[in-house]
């Protein structure tokens, strides 16, 4: 069973088409990534899937529950970490989490049982009685993730969960996400504009101006839309220029950069006597996005 099945989903804001007939599916237990620039339609899609926003057209099913008809069941099955913090600054972490647990009908005792495993793994004990508004960005994100997991959801939406965080906090958040996948086998639906965050995804959908422009595993996308690069450390010479002439290449200070779509191993083998100092750079998701849209992603 798919966790999410979306067919022909459309969303208009007045005359503006925010989502243009998009279709995709997310398998249960997958880490699925929606990649795109700000304004590409990622948050709009998440808000529709989580019953917050009304769709203009198309069909959506979450665990076989139809959006618009079985919204209560859908709401109980999903958790969301929003792009911006939505907990109360003036309340303590404890009060924020207990009140949110009650939204799902959990008693204090049930909430305690659910929170117990998070106290250590998410280091909640030390900030338990602190006001949410006084926490650092990374600490807030930890609490946001715990809040989204309180009712043991089957599907977790993460809407740009690391935006605005320092590198250390970003790494911590990703450690938590990976742990969730490992320990809970939870389906995770991620939106991001950070290329490297899609690296570990099972599948990536690239969204541009409301349209899906590519879909596949990170490896497939790189193979299809990005070229690997050979960095050959050697002095510039006519002989080397001739050797590289069939390939797109440049020379910078002490090395050639040569682009390869494929056959890089064969080339290296054939020229192993000449090419002794080199490194191979795999095509990145950055290259994928650049090749697909002609633009680089913001905030890279």
């Amino acid at each position: 069973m798919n966790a999410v099945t979306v067919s022909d989903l459309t969303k208009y804001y007045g005359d503006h088409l925010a989502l243009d007939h998009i279709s995709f599916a997310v398998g249960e237990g997958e880490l699925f990534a929606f990649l795109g620039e700000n304004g590409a339609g990622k948050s709009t899609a998440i808000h529709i899937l989580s019953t917050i926003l009304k769709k203009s057209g198309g069909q959506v099913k979450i665990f076989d529950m139809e959006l618009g008809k079985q919204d209560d069941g859908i709401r109980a099955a999903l958790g969301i970490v929003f792009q911006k913090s939505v907990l109360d600054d003036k309340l303590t972490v404890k009060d924020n989490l207990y009140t949110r647990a009650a939204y799902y009908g959990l008693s204090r005792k049930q909430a305690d049982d659910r929170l117990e495993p998070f106290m250590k793994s998410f280091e909640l004990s030390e900030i338990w009685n602190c006001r949410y508004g006084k926490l650092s960005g990374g600490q807030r994100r930890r609490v946001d993730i715990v809040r989204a997991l309180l009712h043991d959801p089957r599907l977790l939406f993460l809407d740009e969960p690391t935006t605005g965080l320092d590198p250390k906090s970003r790494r911590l958040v990703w450690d938590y996400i990976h742990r969730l996948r490992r320990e809970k086998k939870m389906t995770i639906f991620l939106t991001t504009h950070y290329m490297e965050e899609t690296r570990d995804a099972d599948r990536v959908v690239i969204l541009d101006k409301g349209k899906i422009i590519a879909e596949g595993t990170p490896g497939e996308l790189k193979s299809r839309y990005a070229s690997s690069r050979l960095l050959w450390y050697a002095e510039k010479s006519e002989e080397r220029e001739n050797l590289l002439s069939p390939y797109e290449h440049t020379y910078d200070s002490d090395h050639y950069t040569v682009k390869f779509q494929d056959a890089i191993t064969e080339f290296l083998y054939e020229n192993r006597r000449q090419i002794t100092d080199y490194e191979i750079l795999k095509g990145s998701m950055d290259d994928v996005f650049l090749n697909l849209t002609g633009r680089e992603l913001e905030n890279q």
Partner: protein
Amino acid sequence: MRNFWGLTKRNLLVFFEDKQAVVFSLLTSIIVLALYLLFLKGTFVDAINEVLDSASGLRELISQEDVGAYVNLLLFAGILGSAMVTVPFHCLTTLVKDREKGVDLDICATPVRRWQTALAYFAAAAFSAVLMTGLILTAGLCLLAFQGRLYLEASAIAAAYGVVVLGSISATALFLIVVLFFRTSSACGAFFGILSAAAGFVIGAYIPISQFSEGVQTACNVFPASHVTILLRNILLGGVLDRMDQAAGGLDNGRFTASLKETFSFKAHLFSCDLDVTEMLCYVLVFALACIVVTIFLYPKTCERK
């Protein structure tokens, strides 16, 4: 129901954790008290004494303590009436802040139904108003009892608490509709400033409503808050008016206390009709119920994002 109570508790915590907001929610009551201490008490006492002087013999029969108690209780009703306006409104600004900050998105994505969300905001604001106004009423009654001027029977005290509950509910029901139309907390704050200034006049805390033209009286009495304040006047001042009547010993056939009741609006004047206590109670109840029904239908429409 646990999700409803959870959201109600959260709304209460958000309101009461902001100590400054709690103090400023009593802004009009503080203004009424300040004006009273500065000049209103003197003005009212002088006006009543003038009436007493004009009626032969009454000045000697009705004590200045009773006149003072009458004016004090008049102020007390005004403070309670204004608290029942400003406290629920201030608590309901949580709804506007939640929409501004996106907290409502979080609520919308949970199994809490839209109507439960609206009722949770309502319940929290009404409870805050009952609690704050109830505390003021208790403190005032204790002070009067300490001074030995609590001329109220137990049934009247119970009725005063009942009116506090009714007044808090009716004001909350009305303001819940009002706040649904605010998009930003700054706009809501600006409205609160206007409301704080206007509330004292609408409920007749600064100037008795009877001093206004018929149209203005009707405009003031459309709002349940003015009915509630009038009900409180009837309950809280009933005892001291009885004492004055007894002191006069039938000399003026109750004309003095009747004129006080007329001047200080013990009945609500609405569209050429004078509503008595029972009619005012019915008006406030129907008004509150109608507002609650409107909100339950209106709230889901205003939180739908198209």
